[in-house]
């Protein structure tokens, strides 16, 4: 502790300095108020002993300035005085003095007073230090929350894109929501949503929503099934979350036609399929454990399938709804929820939430509360941006020998290669069909000489493929040539497939009306429909297909 002695009389200064240094205090001397302030501004001082009557700046003048300088931290000022009257004491206290010592100095009293004030000073310093730390941490948390909030709002973007499909209400108990509600559409036009409830609430509960949302959006964009999405989410959450944390969830897919629902349900309260009046058509009970608990090999994929119509709606909610308590500690419960659904025709989530609020008499919300109602509507086809095609023409020849015919999957490989060309990938299913039909025709009839009529017999379909497999095993030498020509200007892909075999006459016209009954011929008809032109050479062992990319 450093003590500043402010006195214009050198004798007093020396006396006090000696006494204090014996007590192991550091002592600094100033001869008037102005000097004292200068020292304060330059060095650390803990206690000020201040004379009243001094030249330049006296003690009464200096005291308030010293207090100002000290700011929030307690800086004890002990007046050195010979005065004994009450008015002088009051004056000393009024300008900020904390105590007095009288001349002549009593060593015991001086040391007792210094020690007492030093203790207070130390406590004040500590308190101030802690306050600064608290402020620092508070600011840091504020800043971090802002950043995290920003990330969350971007990651869980709840845009109004899906208003027609869904009416939802989310109200977190704190800044961050431990419930998540995600919606997305697949490329096939199906509508997906996920309602999840992580253990607890607040930021700790909300962090899991980030990886979960990424997985959900990525898998929906590939049009995956709800149980595959659940499997993946379970795996990731199981590895990320601490073992006491998990996520109760419902993952719903409404098919593009709006006629069927697939639901994977783990750990959430019952879902209700309701009609316009709010009557329950079907209750969907949770089938599985929440996500993030089971190891992948224990995970259960079973889903619930429902046939629905456009007047029906699916209600899903986290336990925050049924577990809302009133002041008597009673829960809102399923029965009140079921009643609320019937309270008006085409009930809204807003209205259900109002019911719970009225029930709880508007007391503070204890848990995150989320509710959503899905309208079972058919999807609208999302207009695709126009496809851009490579401007580079090319020709490609593939010779497929007996080894590759017997053991490889040359058409799939060829389609994979062609799909890499800009724009052509969009047509890969059609290209596969064309090449597969022509190639298998060449293998079955040109190379192996099999008779498709076998397929028309009872169980002939399997017999045919068994015959084919054993014929392939015995295949000695064969060659099928596939040529591909891409003409970007014409916007066409030309394929020619020849088998150098005996050829055949396509019975195309005969089969046109009996296509469904006849086990063969269907392939050629498909080929004709998908391609722009199909023709055989005169011997029937080479087929040329022109496919239009437009």
């Amino acid at each position: 502790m450093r003590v500043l002695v402010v006195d214009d009389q050198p004798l007093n200064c020396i006396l006090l300095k000696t006494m204090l240094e014996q007590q192991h205090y550091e002592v600094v001397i100033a001869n008037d108020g102005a000097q004292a302030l200068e020292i304060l501004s330059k060095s650390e001082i803990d206690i000020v002993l201040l004379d009243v009557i001094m030249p330049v700046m006296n003690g009464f003048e200096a005291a308030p300035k010293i207090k100002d300088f000290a700011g929030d931290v307690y800086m004890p000022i002990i007046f050195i005085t010979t005065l004994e009257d009450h008015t002088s004491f009051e004056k000393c206290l009024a300008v900020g003095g904390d105590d007095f010592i009288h001349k002549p100095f009593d060593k015991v009293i001086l040391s007792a007073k210094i020690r007492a004030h030093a203790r207070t000073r130390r406590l004040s310093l500590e308190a101030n230090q802690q306050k600064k730390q608290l402020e620092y941490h508070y600011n840091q948390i504020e800043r971090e929350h802002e950043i995290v909030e920003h990330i969350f709002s971007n990651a869980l973007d709840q845009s109004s894109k899906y208003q027609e499909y869904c009416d939802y209400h989310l109200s977190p108990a704190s800044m961050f929501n431990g419930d998540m509600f995600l919606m997305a559409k697949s490329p096939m036009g199906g509508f997906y949503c996920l309602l999840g409830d992580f253990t607890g609430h607040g930021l700790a509960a909300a962090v899991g929503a980030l990886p979960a949302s990424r997985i959900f959006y990525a898998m929906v964009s590939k049009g995956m099934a709800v149980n595959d999405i659940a499997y993946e989410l379970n795996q990731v959450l199981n590895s990320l979350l601490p073992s006491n944390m998990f996520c109760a969830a419902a993952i719903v897919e409404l098919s593009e036609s709006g006629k069927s629902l697939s639901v994977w349900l783990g750990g959430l309260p019952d879902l209700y399929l309701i009609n316009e009046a709010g009557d329950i058509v079907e209750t969907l009970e949770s089938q599985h454990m929440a996500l993030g608990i089971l190891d992948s090999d224990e995970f259960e994929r079973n889903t619930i399938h429902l046939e629905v119509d456009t007047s029906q709606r699916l209600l899903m909610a986290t336990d925050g709804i049924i577990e809302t308590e009133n002041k008597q500690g009673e829960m809102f419960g399923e029965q009140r929820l079921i009643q609320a659904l019937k309270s008006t025709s085409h009930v809204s989530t807003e209205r259900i939430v109002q019911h719970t609020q009225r029930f709880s008499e508007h007391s503070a919300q204890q848990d995150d509360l989320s509710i959503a109602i899905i309208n079972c509507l058919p999807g609208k086809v999302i207009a695709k941006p126009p496809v851009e095609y490579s401007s580079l023409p090319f020709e490609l020849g593939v010779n497929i020998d007996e080894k590759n015919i017997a053991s490889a999957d040359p058409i799939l490989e060829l389609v994979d290669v062609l799909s890499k060309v800009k724009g052509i990938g969009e047509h890969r299913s059609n290209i596969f069909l064309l090449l597969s039909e022509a190639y298998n025709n060449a293998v079955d009839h040109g190379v192996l000489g099999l008779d498709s009529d076998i397929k028309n017999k009872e169980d002939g379909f399997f017999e045919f493929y068994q015959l084919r497999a054993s014929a392939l095993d015995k295949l000695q030498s064969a060659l099928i040539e596939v040529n591909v020509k891409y003409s970007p200007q014409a916007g066409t892909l030309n394929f020619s497939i020849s088998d150098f075999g005996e050829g055949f006459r396509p019975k195309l016209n005969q089969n046109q009306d009996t296509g469904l009954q006849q086990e063969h011929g269907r392939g050629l008809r498909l080929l004709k429909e998908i391609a722009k032109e199909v023709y055989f050479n005169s011997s029937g062992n080479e087929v040329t297909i022109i496919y239009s990319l437009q």
Partner: protein
Amino acid sequence: MSLSKNASADGKTLTIQIRGKFDFNLVQSFRQAYADVGSQTQKVVVDLRETDYMDSSALGMLLNMKKTLSDSVETIQISNCRPQLKKILQISRFDKKFDID
């Protein structure tokens, strides 16, 4: 190329999902997938969401399934087809025989 099957929670729906390529290479496993369909199963869903490729042999396999199951199962649904595959089914008039969703 793979095939997986899954019974729904209530056992009434069997879903057969085909990934990648649907053609005669699956002839055995596809037949096995519905071979043990019991009286409890009311509906079979062939889920083509992850099917990229299909040819006429797949159509034949679907018709075979229809023949085998027509007495025991109420509906056979072909669901989540990509547009090009849906067109193949339509050209082949499968929409008359199957519930294409």
